């Protein structure tokens, strides 16, 4: 139950960047969310519709890119997905892995509308 504050953060960051570029409207926001970050797309979308109302980001499409969690074996270097009932390396059998993917949680980009006469700014 923490997606509300997360959604507020997303809105704040997007509005701040839109303002810097003199945007009239934000039409899309691309989010990269790793498997190990505990955030639920549906909940973010639900709060988004409510809290973006009345802002330049109202109606913006949220695009979620999910990144699977990955482990890298520190013994043989093999890269494999983090899932299931064992973390042992499927290639060499060692239990010495490092989490190399899945913690991502950032805004990659936004699409904004700019008035023609602002293009030169």
């Amino acid at each position, binding site marked *: 139950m*923490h997606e509300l504050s997360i959604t507020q953060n997303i809105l704040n*960051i997007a509005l701040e960047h839109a303002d810097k570029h003199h945007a009239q409207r934000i039409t899309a926001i691309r989010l990269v969310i790793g498997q*190990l970050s505990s955030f639920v797309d549906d909940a973010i979308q639900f709060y988004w519709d409510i809290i973006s109302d009345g802002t330049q980001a109202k109606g913006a499409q949220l695009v979620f890119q999910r990144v699977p969690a990955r482990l890298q074996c*520190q013994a043989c270097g093999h890269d494999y997905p983090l899932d299931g009932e064992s973390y042992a390396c499927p290639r060499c059998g060692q239990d010495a*892995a490092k989490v190399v993917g899945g913690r991502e*949680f*950032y805004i990659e980009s936004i*699409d904004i509308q700019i008035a023609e006469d602002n293009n030169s700014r």
Partner: protein
Amino acid sequence: MTVKTISIQENILNANDSLAAQIRTWLTENRVFAVNMMASPGAGKTSLIERTISGLSGKRRVAIINGDTTAASMDAERAQKVGALAIHVNTGGNCHLEAFMVRSALDALDLSGIDLLIVENVGNLVCPSGWDLGTHRRVLVASIPEGADKPYKYPSMYSGVSAVVINKVDLLPYVPFDMDYFRKGIEALNPNTAIFPLSCTTGEGVNAWLEWLERQMAFYAG
């Protein structure tokens, strides 16, 4: 009207993380070693805190910031009873502590009188993992009755921790628990993590945990 794509690449938790970094610097400057203690409800965080305060009594000064989802402050009171400064933080139903909550709680503590700050997070094996609280180390408290599969079911919580305490080892004769499987899960996710099997009820294994804390404090608190 033109549409333009702007690259942002900004962490959604930036506001929390930069405040956490400030807190960490502030604590380090004040020679306070801080731990973010996370666990599921009932693993024994408060019992471990009581053991820790008693074990360090007379040697180190301990303060507790205790996060709970309600105004019920019995955990903070338990810590106070055994001699620690304890601040209760009511998260108002929120499932985890955030850096700003720790920041406000710190206003009520005189850091010059503290060697060890334990931030007792809300009992939850999912949400607290995402939030940096400005502590130096993250410690997970697990317990035997929870089962040995937890590192595999909650990888986000079980990765990125400096130490794992396995509480309630006095129950090992009565509860099936594959210690080897459990340890493998932790070690795979955190190759250099310290693991402390112990019992807050009998006191078995508590000294190794206290020695680990003492080593961290020698570094951060002097």
